[in-house]
């Protein structure tokens, strides 16, 4: 019975309304038209949501966005201005830094979603070094120890899943995901034992030494003030820009980067070319983890001066999105990071007026991401509308 009905359905010479085919090629400007179009639509959706929630119109939102970036030019003055500006820049740098770390892994088609854990490994190590070795070391020495320690810790956390992937083909997505939460618990543990022993109020603050510690943790301000006019954030810019340059060269100009691209494309080709796939996997994840660790160091020593389970702020996951949407290209990734940070800061600014802070930002960022993620479909595929040709 049911067979008959489907039979007649298939017998109808009607063609499907839509038909999807893969695009052979698309001019670059067209693909950007799709992406920008998606972004614009998502912004309109966001505006509607903001308007219905806060009553703010488009011009208010624009003002808030501008304000979030360059600060208010009227009331509070220069100080706020710079703080706002640097807050956005800092966020961009952190996102971009982690996203850069993910590039080699993703390019190898190794789904390292463990940036969160690797970041924390570096952050925690930095905090431990700060806390316990400060009295015994010069600032320079301390600085070197923190970097080395955090890089090693991040690399270690990244390489464990890689070893299992290389040797026994253990699913790396699931493994790195679990490693995140193991590390989060370690951080939770450490932040409790060390905060409690010092009798610090609240959980997770290791910043016993206060401002003095702050200076010793980072470049001492008295040395650097002349150069960077007291902006620690400027050093972050240098680190991340150097990292970006390094990553570009590494991926595009070195033998190792070439090997990564080959392995990601086809393991068979890699074996044919005499590449030791296992060692490439392990080596690449050492690098990926190490850079995540370095960003963790940057966050703790340059800005947070403490570590707690909230330090990472889900940037490890957001960075995955950045890397993917940025198509592993440094410039695009920087653009996406900036966009997300700006969006986040802008909506936070808006939401503060109604007392809802980051949560609305997450909603709006999510919506924008959905649209941009979805727009890739139209770049890669073409929808053909079909009409029955008049054969009779």
């Amino acid at each position, binding site marked *: 019975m049911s067979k008959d009905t489907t039979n007649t359905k298939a017998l109808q010479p009607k063609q499907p309304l839509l038909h999807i085919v893969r695009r052979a090629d698309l001019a670059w400007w067209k693909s950007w038209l799709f992406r920008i179009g998606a972004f614009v639509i998502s912004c309109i959706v966001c505006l509607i949501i903001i308007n219905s929630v806060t009553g703010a119109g488009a011009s208010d939102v624009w003002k808030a966005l501008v304000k979030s970036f360059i600060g208010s030019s009227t009331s509070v003055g220069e100080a706020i201005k710079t703080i706002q500006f640097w807050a956005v820049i800092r966020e961009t740098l952190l996102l971009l830094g982690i996203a850069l770390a993910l590039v080699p892994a993703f390019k190898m088609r190794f789904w390292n979603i463990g940036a969160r854990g690797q970041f924390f490994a570096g952050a925690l190590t930095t905090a431990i070094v700060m806390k316990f070795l400060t009295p015994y070391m010069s600032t320079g020495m301390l600085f070197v120890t923190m970097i080395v320690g955090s890089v090693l810790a991040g690399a270690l956390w990244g390489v464990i899943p890689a070893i299992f992937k290389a040797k026994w083909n*253990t699913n790396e997505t699931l493994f790195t995901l679990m490693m995140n*939460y193991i590390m989060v618990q370690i951080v*939770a543990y450490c932040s409790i*034992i060390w905060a409690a022993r010092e009798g610090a109020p609240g959980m997770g603050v290791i910043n016993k030494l206060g401002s003095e510690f702050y200076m010793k943790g980072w470049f001492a301000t008295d040395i650097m003030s002349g150069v960077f006019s007291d902006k620690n954030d400027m050093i972050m810019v240098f680190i991340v820009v150097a990292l970006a340059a390094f990553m570009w060269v590494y991926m595009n100009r070195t033998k190792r980067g070439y090997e990564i691209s080959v392995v990601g494309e086809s393991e068979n080709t890699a074996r044919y070319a005499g590449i030791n796939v296992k060692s490439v996997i392990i080596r690449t994840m050492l690098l990926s983890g190490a850079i995540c660790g370095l960003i963790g160091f940057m966050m703790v020593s340059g800005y947070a001066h403490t570590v707690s389970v909230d330090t990472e702020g889900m940037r490890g996951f957001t960075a995955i999105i950045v890397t993917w949407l940025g198509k592993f290209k440094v410039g695009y990734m920087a653009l996406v990071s900036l966009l997300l940070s700006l969006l986040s800061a802008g909506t936070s600014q808006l939401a503060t007026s109604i007392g809802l802070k980051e*949560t609305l930002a*997450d909603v709006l960022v999510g919506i924008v*991401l959905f649209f941009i*993620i979805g727009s890739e479909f139209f770049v890669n595929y073409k929808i053909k509308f079909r009409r029955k040709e008049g054969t009779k």
Partner: protein
Amino acid sequence: MDYIISAITTIFSTSFVTMAITKGISLLYGALGEMMTEKAGNMNLGIPGIMYMGAVGGIFGAYMYENNWSSSFSPFLAILVALAFCLLFSMLGGLIYSFLTITLKANQNVTGLALTTFGTGFANFLGGSLAKLSGNDGLAVVVRKTGKAFKTTLPFYEPMANSNSGFLKTVGEVLFSYGFLTYVCIALAIGLAFVFNRTRWGLNLRAVGENPGAADAAGVNVNAYKYIATMAGSAVAGIGGMYFVMERISGVWQNNALGDTGWLAVALVIFALWRPGRAIWGSLLFGGLCVLGTCMNVPDQTKEIVRMLPYIMTVLVLVVTSLRKRREDQPPQSLGLSYFREER
């Protein structure tokens, strides 16, 4: 040594068991939901976000019902309204994920993570707004009445709890002191095990997750299966989120109420090797480990270490199964990949 003795005595206390079960069941809901979508080859890392959406949906429905929509409180209606909003919200999350990954063939990990960001933000935003409305300094939303309705026990629990026999009391406490959703969850797990293994749907669904090309060639509508599994899975996971706030914390919403429940649920799927039956006892184990520290009255840091154990065990399971290479224990083969029939 002291810890071990203390742990053992704790494990045999009824309060520990009941706490472990309620925690475990919320994980089980999430894990079953994730399992359904993963069986269809969709690695949904948006499940934590979807659980948040379901939880806040339940709270929203209950709050509206308790405060705005009715003068007299009917527990049955309260449950219905809460459940309706829970399903609405969580399936909205599932729809977003499905549309992006199945129809638009977007990367599953990226979409899932974006959905988790969105879902968590959405829940905290809505929850925060409600908290403001309710005047609790914007800190919490309380829907105690609905929470209580959800915790309505089976009729024979009362007599057992009031009986003089210590044995009956304990049995009643351990097995029957929970709301109906607890039993629904166990039944769901058993039902899913049956569906996966013995029915045509289950067979087709597994084929879609393992080898969509083969399923397609055999006449299975791959996209329909993916959509339905993902949407249904989201609904189930959403109920898990609501269960957590209604049953476990008795109808109170706070910012980030669920913590890492969603990620634990994802871990549980791996731990259970994609089998609903194993997930039942796995959920008890995970639930137990999560609450062990709290019940043992040990220092906070020890609790954190105990809470690490579920993840470590999951990693061990992952490693051991990849070493043993038993085909039946592996993740669905096309997990994480989108399907396009005309791919060459």
